[in-house]
């Protein structure tokens, strides 16, 4: 069965270095996984729908499809630009509005871009705790790309080595994971509920 890798990119410009990094990671992950396909979700066109969901409590249209894709993904690659020493608000909003449990057990590769390598620990102090909270399995190697990383090339370049290593780790986590559709919140609530006699007995 083909594994589904969903890539979430919170880059805002075009071309975007965040999207560029997301594509590098997606290609490397597909290569490492073998039988896999990717779906890229750009958050910029979903920005208004995300604000609406914050207010109404439900997603519509392409945003609903994107959230469903993330919930059913075999792996997620999440890439954000660094804004004010953390992930961008748009990036956080997308993961804020996901249905509870949507990322339970899902391997997530975290990555970020910024103008300077001095922000590189954002992966460890912001992204990793976020996805740990969401009960995702975060790939040990996160990938950070500063402006200077785009100036080097070739397989020996530091960025390329980090991308390869992270992709290999992601593939190993995916391989160890059961396949098939995941239950959603309603299914899980129902399964956890038991019958009414059990509820009555507290």
């Amino acid at each position, binding site marked *: 069965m083909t594994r589904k890798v969903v890539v979430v990119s919170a880059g805002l410009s075009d071309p975007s270095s965040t999207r560029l990094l997301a594509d590098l990671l997606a290609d490397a992950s597909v290569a490492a996984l073998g039988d896999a396909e990717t779906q890229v979700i750009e958050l910029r066109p979903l920005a208004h729908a995300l*604000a*609406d969901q*914050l*207010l*109404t*409590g*439900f997603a*519509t249209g392409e945003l609903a499809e994107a959230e469903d894709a993330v919930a059913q993904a075999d792996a997620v690659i999440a890439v954000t630009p660094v804004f004010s020493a953390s992930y961008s608000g748009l990036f956080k909003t997308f993961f804020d509005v996901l249905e509870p449990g949507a990322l339970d057990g899902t391997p997530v590769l975290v990555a970020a871009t910024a103008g300077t390598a001095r922000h590189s620990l954002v992966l460890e102090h912001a992204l990793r705790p976020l996805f740990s909270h969401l009960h995702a399995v975060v790939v040990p190697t996160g990938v950070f790309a500063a402006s200077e990383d785009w100036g080097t090339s070739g397989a020996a370049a530091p960025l390329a080595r980090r991308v390869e290593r992270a992709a290999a780790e992601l593939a190993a986590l995916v391989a160890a994971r059961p396949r098939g559709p995941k239950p959603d919140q*309603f299914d899980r*609530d*129902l399964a956890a*509920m038991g*019958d*009414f006699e059990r*509820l*009555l007995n*507290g």
Partner: protein
Amino acid sequence: MEYGIFTVGDVTTDPTTGRTPTEHERIKATVAIAEKAEEVGLDVFATGEHHNPPFAAPANPPVLLAHIAAKTERIKLSTSTTLITTNDPVRIAEDYAYLQHLADGRMDLMLGRGNTGPVYPWFGKDIRDGIALAIENYALLHRLWREEDVDWQGKFRTPLQGFTSTPRPLDGTPPFVWHGSIRSPEIAEQAAYYGDGFFSNHIFWPPEHTARMIALYRARFEHYGHGKAEDAIVGLGGQVYLARNSQDAIREFRPYFDVAPVYGHGPSLEEYMASTPLSVGSPDQVIEKTLGFREYAGDYRRQLFLVDHSGLPLSTVLHQLDLLGEVVAELRKHEPTPVVEPVETHPVVELVETKPVETHPVVEPVETHPVVEPVETQPVEGASA
């Protein structure tokens, strides 16, 4: 099939005039709205319960409903909802049984957990216990209306020994109960277990979850032996704004929609209508959309509409009710064929066998129930019983 309105009693500034009604005005308007609902031929008026501004819904709905009962003759009085979590079930048993007597049986109630977090600690409760409170409190309420000598012990209130809730339900028939929930399967299960009604107030949500909750309730209703799944007693919320033509409806309602407390400043009116049961348009459009609810809910027994929120002035709401009366008259022509098999476990059946219909509008939820119909032609026999 019953049609009616439900209110949350919000005291909201009219965005088109900047005027905010006083609590006194809002409370009196609520009574006028209920009287109007009866006048235009609706079957049900339901009020929410609230304990915090900006709401002027009663903290104890029987206070309002008893007053309306005295000013009306036919309309059934209900709640949307009665908080089963933070109210003492003993007080619910007592107050609603008293209302049942005052209203000559012309009442029922809908239980809900309440979604205003701060309310729980005001009454010594914890919102994290919401489901457990709803389960335990209703288990007690259910007994209090059916047993005269109750020994009881639970987690959430002091034990009872040999307790008798007074007054006893009218003619020994407990008020009919609906359980309301948007997406907690425990509540659908609870409604099914007891053979009570299940109400999905799905006005702020897309229909997908509503469909799953109702399907669960129907299947479990049958599982617990209360009748066929398709005969389970489902109610739905709705939200309408009507005008003779759709352009006027949209134009008039948009300023209220755009800043409304629940969905304001978010999606456009058109987007919101496409995703939720909100229905703003001509009578024909509202009829069509309302009939569409059956596609995911199946045949259901009660449709309540929200019409008096978001700062709409009383004069507008009363005009809405005139139009809604026309819509409902038309909807009644599209009702499904009555169910043929009796649902023996339904409490209404017991009531009908011994009592006259006029004093027991509780009978009406099973209008489609054939057992009820013969009684409507025998008004006198039970009256002397």
